[in-house]
């Protein structure tokens, strides 16, 4: 599904990623860990086609990231919701549905809004929504076209307990439906509960890559802590 070889990304003289290698088969759920600035977001942005690699090759289903074919199968969700605050939830979804060539009738959109737990709130401006409600709507927006690859950049940031539980069950369903997920996250317990593979990035390269089936949470945590230390 995703093949990354010798990936490097430089911002001026600073290397955000260096010689990063990873292969992700279809249907696998990867939890990406690392300190702030380790390169998790940079990797996700490159996979999404929002940023070009400085060197190395990246392919998604055989396509270069950023191409129309690659973008057609990607849903990207981060703590930034990519919603227009002065438009209603229905208007936001309708706008993106039009761009995606999807049906954009009121009934269908209201149904999608209800599916993320916002039934009856579709005609309110997004500006009036709480952070948790906005993130729920962002889920509906990001996965409107039913993509096969979900790129998730710290999607639980700012969510309360209820919102976290909702997103967790949503991602479990997506994983069970065979979607490939790559999620940058700091919460080891949450990552462990969702992922098939725990990957830690340190100084722009993969430093730990452990299948959940062969490692306990305690074991991962101790190895991860030893890796990042108290620097």
């Amino acid at each position: 599904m995703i093949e990354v070889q010798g990936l490097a990304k430089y911002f001026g003289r600073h290397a955000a990623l260096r010689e990063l290698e990873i292969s992700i088969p279809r249907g696998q759920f990867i939890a990406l860990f690392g300190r702030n600035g380790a390169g998790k977001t940079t990797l996700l942005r490159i996979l999404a086609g929002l940023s070009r690699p400085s060197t190395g090759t990246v392919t998604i289903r055989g396509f270069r990231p950023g191409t129309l074919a690659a973008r057609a199968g990607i849903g990207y969700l981060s703590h930034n919701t990519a919603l227009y605050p002065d438009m209603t939830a229905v208007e936001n979804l309708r706008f993106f549905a039009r761009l995606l060539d999807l049906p954009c009738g009121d009934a269908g959109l209201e149904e999608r809004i209800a599916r993320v737990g916002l039934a009856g709130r579709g005609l309110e401006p997004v500006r009036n929504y709480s952070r948790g409600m906005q993130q729920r709507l962002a889920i509906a927006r990001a996965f409107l076209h039913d993509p096969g690859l979900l790129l998730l950049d710290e999607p639980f940031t700012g969510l309360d307990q209820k919102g976290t539980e909702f997103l967790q069950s949503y991602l479990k369903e997506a994983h069970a439906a065979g979607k490939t997920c790559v999620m940058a996250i700091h919460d080891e317990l949450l990552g462990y509960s969702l992922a098939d593979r725990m990957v830690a990035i340190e100084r722009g390269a993969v430093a730990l890559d452990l299948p959940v089936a062969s490692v306990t949470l305690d074991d991962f945590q101790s190895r991860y802590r030893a890796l990042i230390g108290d620097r």
Partner: protein
Amino acid sequence: MPGKVWAVFRKDLLIELRTKDSLNAMLFFGIVVLVIFNFALEGARDSIRAAVPGVLWVSFVFSGTLGLNRMFSTEKENSCLQGLLLVPMDRGILYLGKMLAAAVFMLVAEAVIFIFSMVFFNLTVWKEIPYLILVFLIGTLGFTSVGTILSAISANTRMREVLLPLILFPVVLPILINAVEATGIILNTNDYGALRLPLTIMSAFTIVFGTVSYLLFDFVLED
């Protein structure tokens, strides 16, 4: 493709109608410029029509630059631009929709500013209005065809409000010079045949820069 261009345009229009962020600022600034020139040219009332084309386009361009500065700032809020870039569509569609919206906002501002200029400078121009509309339309399309892509570039910088006029004005100089000349011909000579050259230059500029901007827009938006 036209449906998607329309969707981007309609979204910008909807947000502007609700917030009125751009138009209020554009109109206020454009009219203030007119008021200042009205006082400055008090002693030259007899030859005021000769000065009006320059005054009008200074006012149009300043207010238009304010509108262009706002164009991508709404997209930066909540990282909406990122959401748009992930949509599997030709990113040139985004450019066309944005350019169309910028042109419509600027034309609305121009219409109001022009009405105020008729009052301030005591202009009687009913007969010339169709020609003026043509010049304003082509001039505005030329200005926004370059302005939209440069606005996208400057939106990613810290000093975007300062940077945009600095990179925009030198590039649109051919449009501005010919727009002022064409407006001057209409207001002062009635020799409408002489409009052909400035209008041809403005149209060629708009087509060339519009096409180049459309093709380059994809690269401008990536890191």
